[in-house]
C-alpha cells in the first residue's frame, strides 16, 4: 500500500484550490440512474452452489462489530469467540475478517483473539461524530494502534467537508494514516450525512488521494447507513482509481446490512461494478453484527434443506 498518491494525481492534492477543482471536475452522478442500476443488479438470482459460495465469502468479509457505550471486556471476549468460530457445530465455517471495537477494548480483543488470524479493527478519531481537535483525534488513533489494533476505522470531518474545506479533510486523513503505522486505514465517509451521490464520489476520491486503504460507507450510528447505490458509487471510485494508478483499494459497507439476501446483493455489486478481483476480504468488508447469525442460518438451510431457527445459532 502506498502512502502518497501517484504523480499524476499528486497535483490534485497540492492545495485546497486544486483539490476543489479536481473533485468538482469529476463527472456527476445521476441519482435516478445509479439507483436504477443498483435496483436492477439487486434482482440477480443467486442460487445453490453460488449461494453457498457467497455465504462463505460474506462470512469471511464480516467485520464483527460491537460499538456500544455499554461494552465491557466480557462482551468483547464473547464477540471474539464468535469471530473465531462463528458456528461451533460446524468447524468448517470460516472465521470472520476482523472484530471492530472501541479503542479502549482493543487490548481485550488482542488477548482473546491470540494467533487466530482474525484482525482487530478499532474505530478512532472521535468516532462517530468526528467532532474533536486534531490532537485528540490523532491521540485516539495512536492509542488504538499501540494497544494492538491491526486496522483503524477513522471518520472524516463531515462539517469541514460540507463547508468545502477539502484540504483540511485531506490533511487529517494523511495525518491519521501516518499515525496508523503498520495498521491499515479505513476512512468512514458517513454517506448518510453527505446525502448526495456527488458528495459521496468526491469524498471517496478525497480519501483515496489521501492514502486511505479502504473507504467505508458509514459509522452505523445514523440512518441511512450503507445502501446499495452509495456502495455502487464507492465501488466505481476504487475501480476508477485502479484504472488510473494500478492500485487496488478496498470498500467497506457498514450498517443496515441485516440479512443474507442483502449481503449477497452487496457481493453482486462488488463483482459487477468493481470486478471479480475485489471479491476478497482484503478488498471488501461488511461491517455488521446481527448479519452473521443470518448468514449462519442460511448456510445451514442450504446444507440441511430446511429453514433454520434462532436457537440453532449462538447469541454471542
Amino acid at each position, binding site marked *: 500500500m502506498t502512502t502518497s498518491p501517484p504523480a499524476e494525481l499528486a497535483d490534485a492534492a497540492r492545495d485546497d484550490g486544486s483539490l476543489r477543482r479536481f473533485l468538482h471536475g469529476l*463527472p*456527476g*452522478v*445521476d441519482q*435516478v*440512474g*445509479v439507483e*436504477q*442500476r443498483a435496483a*436492477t443488479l439487486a*434482482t*440477480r*438470482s*443467486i*442460487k*445453490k*452452489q*453460488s*449461494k453457498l*459460495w*457467497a455465504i*462463505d*465469502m460474506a462470512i469471511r468479509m464480516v467485520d464483527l462489530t460491537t460499538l456500544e457505550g455499554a461494552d465491557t471486556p466480557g462482551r468483547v471476549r464473547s464477540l471474539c469467540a464468535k469471530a473465531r468460530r462463528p458456528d461451533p457445530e460446524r468447524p468448517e465455517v470460516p472465521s470472520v475478517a476482523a472484530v471492530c471495537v472501541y479503542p479502549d477494548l482493543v487490548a481485550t480483543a488482542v488477548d482473546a483473539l491470540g494467533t487466530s488470524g482474525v484482525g482487530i479493527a478499532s474505530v478512532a478519531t472521535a468516532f462517530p461524530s468526528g467532532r474533536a481537535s486534531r490532537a485528540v483525534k490523532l491521540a485516539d488513533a495512536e492509542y488504538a494502534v499501540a494497544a494492538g489494533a491491526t486496522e483503524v476505522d477513522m471518520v472524516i470531518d463531515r462539517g469541514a467537508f460540507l463547508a468545502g474545506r477539502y484540504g483540511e479533510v485531506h490533511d487529517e486523513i494523511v495525518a491519521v494514516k501516518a499515525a496508523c503505522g503498520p495498521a491499515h486505514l479505513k476512512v468512514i465517509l458517513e454517506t448518510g450525512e453527505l446525502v448526495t451521490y456527488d458528495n459521496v464520489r468526491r469524498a471517496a476520491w478525497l480519501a483515496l488521494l489521501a492514502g486511505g486503504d479502504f473507504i467505508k460507507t458509514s459509522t452505523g450510528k445514523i440512518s441511512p447507513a450503507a445502501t446499495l447505490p452509495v456502495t455502487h458509487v464507492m465501488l*466505481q471510485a476504487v475501480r476508477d482509481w485502479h*484504472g488510473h494508478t494500478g492500485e487496488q483499494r478496498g470498500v467497506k459497507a457498514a450498517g443496515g446490512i441485516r440479512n443474507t439476501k442483502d449481503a449477497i446483493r452487496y*457481493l453482486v455489486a462488488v*463483482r*459487477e461494478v468493481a470486478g*471479480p478481483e475485489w*471479491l476478497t476480504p482484503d478488498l471488501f468488508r461488511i461491517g455488521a453484527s446481527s448479519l452473521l447469525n443470518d448468514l449462519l442460518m442460511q448456510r445451514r438451510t442450504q446444507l440441511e434443506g430446511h429453514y433454520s431457527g434462532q436457537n440453532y445459532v449462538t447469541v454471542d
Partner: protein
Amino acid sequence: MSQTTWDYAPAPESRDIARLRPSYQMFVDGQFVDGAGEPLKTINPATEEVLAEVATASPSDVDTAVRAARKAYERTWSKMPGAERAKYLYRIARMVQERARELAVLESLDNGKPIRESRDVDVPLVAAHFFHHAGWADKLPYAGYGPDPRPLGVAGQVIPWNFPLLMAAWKIAPALACGNTVVLKPAETTPLTALVLAEIVQQAGLPPGVVNILPGAGDVGAELVNHPLVNKVAFTGSTEVGKQIQRSLAGSGKKLTLELGGKAANVVFDDAPLDQAVEGIVNGIFFNQGHVCCAGSRLLVQESIADELLDKLRCRVSTLRVGDPLDKNTDVGAINSKAQLEKIVELTESGDAEGAHRWTSPCPLPDKGFFFAPTVFSDVSQAMRIAREEIFGPVLSVLTFRTPDEAIAKANNTPYGLSAGVWTDKGSRILWMAQRMRAGVVWANTFNRFDPAAPFGGYNESGFGREGGRTGLEAYLDV
C-alpha cells in the same frame, strides 16, 4: 471454497406456469375457433424447439372477424357509456396483473427476451396501459377534442414481434377506450401472448366481437388492412412494410397511424454523468437484444471523452450475460428468428467491409438457438451502412462530434426520427438539444423510458401518430 471465481449458478424460471398447449386457436367473436389458413409453428428462438402450432386466418376468416367487430361496434360497444367500457378495461388490467408471471414466462419462451425484462418491464407496462386507458374511456370530453369525440368504428391492427404483448396493449387499450372495436394480427413468430390476452378478454366478460385476434403472416395483415369494413388501421413494424400499407390505403379514406423503424442517436457530452451515461448507452442498445425501434443504435460521443467513455463501455458490456432467456440472471436473450440473425450478421459484415473497427464482447454464447454477442463498432462514419440502416440487433455504432451543432446535424442526418438521447449535466443544453432534435421522443440522462401517459411516436420515416397519453387518443377518434 470450491470455486476460485464466483459464477452464478443457473437460476431458471419454471416453464410450467406458461401452461403451454400443443395448439392454439384464433379468437373471433368471443370464441376460440380453428382457422382456415395453414397453421404456423411458433418456435423458441433460444432452443429452436417448436412451442406450439397456431391456427392462422384465411381471407374468409379475416372477413368473418371484421364483420363480427363491425356488428359488436354497431350494436353494443358504440352504444355503451364510457364508464361501463372503462370497467371492462380495468378488469383486463387486473387480470393481466393476476396472470403476470404466466404471461412473462410465455413471452420469454416465444420471443427470446430475458425473463427479467418481460417480468419487470413488459408485463407491468401492459397492465399500466390498460389501466391508464380505462380511465380515459369516460373522460373523452376532457381530452381536448371537443365535447363529444366519437370513435371511428373497426380498427385493423398489425403488430411486430419485438414486444408482442406490450404492442397488443398499446393498440387494444386506446382503441377500446375510445369506443372502437378491434381486429388484431400478432406477429407471425410471436402469437402466443396475444392469444392468452384473448383468454383474459373472454374471462373479463368483454362482449363478443369487441376484440378479435387473428394469427398469421404478412398476407393476413394485408388482407386485414385492406378490408373495406375496417375504418382505421394501426401498424407497428418496419418502415418498408409501413410504406406498403400507406400506399395501399391511398384513396381509401381509412385513418392510418404508423410506428416504424429508427436509428436513434444517443448523444453524450463531455460533462455527462459518465457512469450513468454508460448504463444508458447499454440500456439503449442492448435492452431487448436491440430489437427496439427506438434503440439508441448510434452513439454520438463528444470527441474529448470518446476514449474514456469507450473504455468504460467495453468493460461494462463485457459483464452482460447472454444466454437462456428463462434464466433470471440473463441480461441479453435470443435473437427472435434465424432471419433476423442473418440480417444482423450481414449488416455487421458490412461494418467490417466499410472500415469500422469491431469489438465484440468475449461473453460465452449458448451453442444452440439464435444468439449474437453484443458488439460495438467504433470509427464509424455517417456514410456507412451500420450508421444508416436499422440493424435491430445488439450492435452499437459509435461516431464522434466536436460541438453541439455538429451533434444535432449528425443526429438529424437520417430519414428516421423516432427517438434520441442526450447526456449532459447542463439543464439548458438538455432543453436546447431537445428542441432541435427531430425525434418524437427525446430522453435526457435516461433512455428507453415508457409510460402510458407519455405519448410515443416518430417523425419522418419513423411513422406518424402517437401512442399513449392524451395525444394518443386522437388516433382512435373521429377528430
